[in-house]
């Protein structure tokens, strides 16, 4: 247990700062928004409620967890708190891995917490499980993105902006890919084609979050267009690579 002290204190800090309360509050707000949207819908009110909840809670919880992570880690790096931690008999690799472990535990708890209202709304259990797994993998990848940006930029505002840009782009990556392919096929002006190729190239550099989880599975009670085997390697690849880059940045940094 002594070896996992950094992970333990990261979790304790999250508890001290009432992160769980914030998660619960977010879930309640998302349920309220979904209930309002479902009340306006003419048909399939129960499925609409669950689908709206899934769409809003996915965005909200990714934002809450990653904003918290970036704020805490940039503060640690800015105020040189990391230096104190590294005074313990742990290597920098251990420090980073324990941080990732702590945030992964938070992500696991969050994914399970978020899936409860879906189950309660009467969504098919198989769909709930698949959606929750996809959401969990998305949380893991976003945690690695946030840690990398925190190590890379060491400033909260820049890290948050970069995270928001990458996350929102990754959420629409397939659509951007399709859109730029259309422009290239249509044959626009020179600058349009260059930009389209640039956007197309960028879509290869980000995870395709659209495939991870979708509210339309819940709305139509059916999983389509995606396979767990296609997203699992994608998530593991991005998670591993981003963690390695973050580790490299942390090791190069002088304290």
């Amino acid at each position, binding site marked *: 247990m002594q070896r996992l002290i950094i992970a333990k204190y990261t979790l304790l800090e999250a508890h001290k700062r009432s992160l769980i309360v914030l998660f619960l509050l977010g879930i309640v707000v998302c349920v309220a928004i979904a209930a309002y949207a479902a009340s306006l819908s003419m048909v399939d009110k129960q499925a609409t409620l669950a*689908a709206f909840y899934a769409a809003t809670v996915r965005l909200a919880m990714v934002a809450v967890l990653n904003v918290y992570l970036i704020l805490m880690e940039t503060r640690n790096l800015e105020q040189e708190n990391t230096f104190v931690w590294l005074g313990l008999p742990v290597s920098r690799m251990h420090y980073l891995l324990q941080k990732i472990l702590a945030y992964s535990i938070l992500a696991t708890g969050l994914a399970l917490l978020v899936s409860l209202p879906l189950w309660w709304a009467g969504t098919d259990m198989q769909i709930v499980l698949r959606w929750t797994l996809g959401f969990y993998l998305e949380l893991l990848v976003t945690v690695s993105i946030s840690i990398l940006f925190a190590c890379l930029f060491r400033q909260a505002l820049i890290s948050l902006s970069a995270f928001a840009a990458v996350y929102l782009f990754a959420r629409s990556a397939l659509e951007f890919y399709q859109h730029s392919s259309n422009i290239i096929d249509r044959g626009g002006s020179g600058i349009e084609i260059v930009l389209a190729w640039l956007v197309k190239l960028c879509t290869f550099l980000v995870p395709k979050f659209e495939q991870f989880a979708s*509210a339309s599975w819940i709305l139509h009670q059916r999983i389509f267009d995606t396979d767990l085997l296609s997203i699992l390697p994608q998530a593991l690849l991005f998670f591993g690579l981003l963690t390695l880059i973050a580790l490299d940045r942390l090791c190069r940094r002088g304290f």
Partner: protein
Amino acid sequence: MRLISRFNAIALTRSQLAQLLLFSCFLINQVQLVSKTDVEPYPLPQPISASDLRVLTLGESAIMAKLLGVWLLSYDTRAGQIIPFERLDYDRLAGWLKTIAQLDELSDYSSMVAAGVFIDVKDRQRQLKMIELVRQRFWEKPEINWRWMAQAIMLSKYRLKDISLALSLAQDLRIGAQGKGIPYWASEMEVYLLHDMGELEAALLLIKAMIDDGAITDADELRFLNRRIMELEASMQSNQNNSSNIQHN
């Protein structure tokens, strides 16, 4: 004394009083706007293509389709008043319904509101536009939209009193239904329409063609159609007898 001291505690400065007055004026203005009796309808904006909207949906295009559906349905309600559908631009409305259908291809929502809500106008041109939209949607996804095609057939026959339109829709339904798991009664609507039109021979030939085609495999359905053939043949025979009796007399 205590009351006066409390009043002093909430006493306002001049600038705060001015702000309060300004806010009150704004509120009164808003109330007047809302209570205006003759509300000008906002024109429906130009529809945005589904491919453009998809980029903004963060991969949740079905949710965007739902939101657009709610927005479109509530478009006739402005400032507490209901504006008749006749004042909506139906070309734009059809464009928005098409966008909704493309955003969520597994949903029959656009066909449902076209055949169930927006068709509820007195203007024939607008009704026809909605029926054409249902027909288009049916050809795009027959297995999802066949119910609303059947609804459009009934509306064409009974509300629009246009049996030739109903017949052409029923023909489309029969052709599009092949191999899509659509109930037999829906694809047989053309037969009933032909019967209603007095085209007994055409109805008979159609049933025979459907049986010969091998599209109908259900034994009960085949028995029902064979009985129908016998009924039609009997009707035709009695018609023939009646006409020969009239000629003889």
